[in-house]
């Protein structure tokens, strides 16, 4: 294919990605070094309260934003260097916490708290999703043909459900004296409140994510199982391989590319864990990196969005995912060079 034709085919897609992905990245990078603030001026204000005989008057100096002719707040953008990053990372407080060995102290800072949760969340759900997906695929592949369709249909439900709604649906089962909380209380004979402390919410979030993503892993693995070479399996049996050995030495190696594919997708998706925090209203106890940026971007009570801090937090989030992906990208690069096409 000539380059010109190739460019014509790929052009629109590249254009969209450049304008809406690459350009915002650069602008976020720039924003994170600048701070836009309303220009303040000190005004002497005299406030008087009516009193007996004479009024009581106090004068104080207030900082007020300057308004232009149109009545809009005048803002000034200045270069602040790494200040926004410092505001997000709080290095002094973090260092003090680390050097005194109090990790609990470190986790009171929003960014480190979010990082801790995001990483544990990603790493704990990964093996669970792969394991459950594989087990489901093997079990469905084992089941009678007549019921496979129905089982696949039910299995796909948690996958296609809107993440916020999925999280909410689990939350409603546990909220207050919801039926599952009531059931647990009856079983354990003690009072339980699932949303009063962090670790129970975290447990529910982990459960939700595995419930939500395992079906995707299942569909992919199930598709992969259909292409396992039956002759290889039979010769393994003739060689006396047990069921477990066949799984370990024939089926899993066959599925390996798919396992890597699922791990990669899961790594990307669970690193940006966000909807769970909204669905379970977990922000008081557990926050994630993406939620941190989201929170900084939502207008606060006075209607301001802290864009530069959000940008700094976004850049730090991005650095994290790049670090997680480096081993994989190196592998792909090596494959590409090895294949030489």
């Amino acid at each position, binding site marked *: 294919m000539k380059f010109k034709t190739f460019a014509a085919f790929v052009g629109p*897609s590249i254009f969209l990605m450049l304008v809406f992905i690459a350009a915002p990245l650069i602008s976020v990078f720039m924003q994170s070094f600048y701070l836009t603030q309303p220009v303040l001026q000190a005004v002497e204000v005299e406030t008087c309260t009516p009193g007996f005989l004479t009024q009581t008057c106090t004068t104080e100096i207030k900082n007020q934003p300057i308004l232009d002719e149109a009545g809009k707040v005048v803002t000034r953008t200045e270069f602040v260097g790494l200040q926004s990053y410092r505001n997000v990372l709080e290095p002094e407080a973090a260092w003090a916490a680390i050097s005194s060995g109090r990790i609990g102290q470190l986790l009171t800072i929003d960014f480190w708290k979010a990082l801790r949760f995001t990483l544990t969340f990603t790493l704990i759900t990964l093996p669970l999703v792969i394991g459950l997906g594989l087990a489901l695929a093997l079990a469905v592949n*084992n089941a009678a043909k007549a019921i496979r369709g129905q089982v696949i249909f039910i299995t796909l439900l948690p996958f296609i459900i809107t993440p*916020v*709604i999925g999280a909410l649906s689990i939350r409603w*089962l546990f909220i207050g004296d919801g039926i599952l909380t009531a059931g647990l209380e009856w079983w354990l004979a003690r009072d339980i409140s699932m949303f009063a402390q962090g670790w129970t919410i975290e447990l529910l979030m982990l459960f939700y994510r595995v419930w939500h993503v395992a079906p995707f892993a299942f569909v*992919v693995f199930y598709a992969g199982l259909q292409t396992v070479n*039956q002759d290889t399996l039979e010769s393994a049996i003739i060689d006396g391989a047990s069921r477990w050995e066949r799984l370990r030495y024939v089926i899993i190696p066959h599925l390996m590319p798919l396992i890597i594919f699922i791990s990669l997708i899961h790594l990307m998706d669970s690193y940006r864990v966000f909807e769970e925090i909204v669905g379970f209203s977990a922000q008081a106890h557990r926050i994630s990196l993406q939620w941190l940026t989201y929170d900084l971007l939502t207008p606060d009570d006075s209607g301001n969005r802290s864009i530069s801090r959000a940008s700094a937090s976004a850049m730090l989030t991005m650095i994290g995912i790049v670090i997680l992906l480096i081993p994989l990208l190196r592998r792909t690069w090596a494959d590409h060079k090895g294949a030489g096409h």
Partner: protein
Amino acid sequence: MSTSRALRQSFALRAGSTGFLVIWCLIAAFPIVWIAVMSFKSPVDAFASNPIDVLLGPETRAQGKGLTLIDILLGLTLLWASIKMAMNWLPGKVEAFTPKDWLLIGWLVGAGAFALAFLVVFFGILPRVTGGLNALLGLEPIIGVSSEHYIAVWVENAFYRNFLNSLLVTTGVVTVSLTVGTLAGYGLARSGSNIAFWILIIALIFRALPHSVLVAGYLPVFINSAEILRPILGENAPTLYGQPLAVIAVLVSINQPFTIWMLRSFFQNIPAELDEAARVDGCTHFQAFRWVIMPVMWPGVITTGLFSFLLAYNDFLVTSLLLDAQNQTMVPAIAGYFNRETTTTDQVEAVAAAVSITAPLFLLVMIFQRQIVSGLTAGAVKG
């Protein structure tokens, strides 16, 4: 695949794997089924701690809202018949009535018409019929069911506006994303050059970016876009913040990396000899794409389209930050419900809204289940 004697399994293994599947199906379906049940009950019943109360709804029944035996039997029969029809009869009809090139649109029209007919029969005609029968036989309701929360959500709180916004955004995203994506996917699949490789790798990195990173880049620009664009577009420069069209562009772009990866692997499975033959006959690349590739690419396009649909329909982060209250889609709108969860009635209304959002997805899986599984088998898996 025939099961040879050696591959046959012991009873314990069979029982174990069946048991595992049964437990999984319960876990997978339970939360969804349960919120659907809750949404039809009065608040006292919906949040009762005894599951039997939630199922039978004594409070709701006491208010005189309920279903009799005939209602249940007729309703279930109709439901079962429509599911069977959607699974067996509809695909054949759609394929018979639409010309090959318009299959996607044929599917959309067919599914839409079917859903509409179902809604009319189930909610329009059926209640009248059963109402007459109940009066005739003098039956009393046995299960408490009430649709008051759905009426509150859809009519009083004007949820249909959010529904229309969702419809606009998802339709836009799926159409644009597939048009742009198929072209790019085809180009990438047929070019073995280094540039194609690098485009794919960069797309992979873009796929990994958390969406909030990108939104942090859009927000300031979108809010001030009227001032930024004024020198170019003059007085008519739009404020992009709150515009569904801007959100469509954003979601299409966010989805592009995944779309082109997936479509590329589908196109790689279509033998290159096919378009080479067309080229030998004197077609240009575009003609070959239009007349040779397009007729055979639909399974891949439908699967990819489903994923685009899910992304656009399920998105919370982008739509909640870039759209204002008037243009809100359904998913962010539901946040409004659980933020003001003050009374239990509000909570059950939130449940009803959640079920309303889930229902179209449920239909979607029902219709496209085969496409999802076979599409992934054919495409992404080998890629």
